[in-house]
């Protein structure tokens, strides 16, 4: 298996037999009446990469916060590295490393001082702390800027330092909450390389959250799709892709009447009233397209344009979460998402 493409760990069959690094049963969290996490079950074998995929406000960050002992769950149980997250929080903390979506670095210190701060808090002796800091700076290509205050760093450098700080304590389980959100494509690829290296070189377990199917596809052994606090699908990237329709045909209309007429005509399909578009499941083959056009003609319904879509993340969300992906031009974020999107889009 090559290092640069696809998941880095052996085979699904081999990983399934390993002891779990993370388990959760009926994990739930609500704030008053607002249910953020609605009973999720997880079983993540050691030494694998698990991706939690979902739109803004789906509950990804909440899941990470519970598993990393930041907030208590309202119901359910979770064990990380063999320890209960509520009863034995300190043992969990000793085994994990967390890199949140907001880089948790000390802006007023230099990169090296940030790493040494972590070494001190892990109670490493001075020489060992210095050695690890130097190693990590080299590994993350930060040696040249080691003595510069972090406030001068770019987003990508900051994220690398953040991850380096997480690694000072030699964690067995690493939580990465949207590790590449807001990064440019180049920094994103660098980050992916680093994450792959962690699994191949160090054999750690990684729990990753992301909005990008591509990222999950690139890194994860298993992917779970989270929507409105519920797991709506789980499996390998291949298994998930099989659940997504091969492609769909998008019909665009000039007015709502045309859309309504076409919707009545085809029965199946998803209406996007705001964009005056109708999405019809179908593989985009010539006979299928001809059938669509013939049906429109026969009913004298006039479509403005027709486009064939091959599957992408939008289709995953459309199919598995029953809503267009927030932020996509064709879809509009549902109200439950927009209430939380400011939090996740802040940087």
């Amino acid at each position: 298996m090559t290092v640069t493409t696809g998941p880095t760990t052996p085979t699904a069959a081999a990983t399934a037999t390993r002891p779990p690094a993370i388990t959760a049963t009926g994990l739930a969290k609500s704030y008053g009446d607002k249910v953020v996490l609605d009973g999720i079950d997880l079983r993540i074998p050691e030494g694998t990469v698990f991706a939690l995929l979902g739109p803004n406000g789906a509950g990804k960050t909440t899941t990470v916060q519970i598993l990393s002992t930041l907030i208590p769950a309202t119901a359910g149980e979770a064990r990380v590295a063999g320890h209960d997250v509520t009863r034995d929080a300190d043992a969990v903390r000793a085994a994990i490393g967390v890199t949140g979506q907001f880089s948790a670095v000390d802006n007023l210190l230099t990169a090296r001082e940030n790493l040494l701060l972590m070494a001190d808090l892990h109670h490493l002796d001075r020489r060992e702390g210095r050695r690890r800091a130097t190693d990590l700076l080299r590994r993350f290509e930060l040696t040249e800027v080691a003595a510069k205050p972090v406030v001068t760093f770019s987003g990508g450098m900051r994220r690398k330092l953040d991850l380096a700080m997480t690694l000072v304590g030699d964690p067995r389980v690493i939580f990465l909450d949207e590790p590449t959100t807001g990064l440019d494509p180049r920094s994103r690829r660098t980050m992916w390389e680093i994450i792959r290296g962690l699994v191949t070189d160090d054999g750690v377990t990684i729990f990753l959250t992301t909005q990008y199917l591509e990222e999950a596809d690139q890194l994860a052994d298993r992917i779970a799709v989270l929507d409105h606090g519920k797991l709506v699908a789980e499996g390998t990237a291949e298994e998930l892709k099989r659940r997504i329709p091969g492609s769909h045909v998008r019909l665009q209309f000039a007015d709502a009447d045309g859309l309504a007429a076409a919707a009545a005509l085809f029965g199946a399909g998803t209406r996007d009233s705001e964009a005056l578009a109708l999405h019809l499941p179908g593989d985009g083959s010539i006979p299928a397209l001809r059938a669509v056009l013939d049906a429109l003609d026969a009913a004298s319904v006039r479509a403005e344009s027709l486009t064939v879509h091959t599957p992408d993340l939008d289709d995953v969300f459309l199919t598995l979460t029953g809503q267009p992906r927030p932020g996509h031009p064709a879809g509009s974020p549902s109200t439950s998402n927009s209430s939380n999107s400011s939090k996740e889009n802040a940087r």
Partner: protein
Amino acid sequence: MTTLSYAVSDSATMLRRNLKHALRYPSMTVSVVAMPVLMLLLFNYVFGGALGTGIGGAAKGGAGYIDYVAPGIILMAATSGAVSIAVGVCVDKTEGIVNRFRTMAISRASFLTGHVVGGVIQTMVSIAFVIGVALLMGFRPDATPVEWLAAIGLLALLTLALTWLSAAIGLVAKTPETASNIPMPLTFLPFLGSAIVPPESMPTGLRWFAEYQPFTPVIETLRGLLTGTAIGDSALIAVAWCAGLTLVGYLWARAVFRRGATR
């Protein structure tokens, strides 16, 4: 290591971090010192003549009004120091590093302890500086070494109380800007006490407030220790206020910190 020695070493690590911030970015410390120094200049050289004459009995001899006003303004260094603690705690919170600390197996108390101890050290340095400026401007305390020690102890106690309160404010505030605004009334409160003029000269309602607010007994005790005016039961009330506020601030900060992730 035992839990206690972890708590001590983690707090020491946090303290080192905060002191490093203070040394490397002195602008906050400078602004903490600047406010009381400006007040001292303003009230001694601009208003001093008129106020000194008005107060009369309180300021006898050549040095005059500065001996009355200096203790009150020295105390303002403690209140303006509190603002910088609130901002420091809030910046840590909003930048996410607090959440990193929370997911590490470190002493829960160390983050706040580091901030509070660091804050008290910083503020005491500011206070020493303001005392120095007051001495240069002609402040002539007649305190014995024991009285000096008691005065410094009282200032440290007040600083500890204000620092714990500010730490809680920093955790509660949504942004560093809010965190710097909320403690503002604290810096104004000494004016509505006996810092600048005796409460006897104020209208009834205000005088009642001035006599019973926490800063007045602290100022009166400080003035008594440094310049030999009557202290009476002010010392006891001052210590009680400081101890009470410390306890409230500590419990409040601890409760907010324990409540979990702050965003």
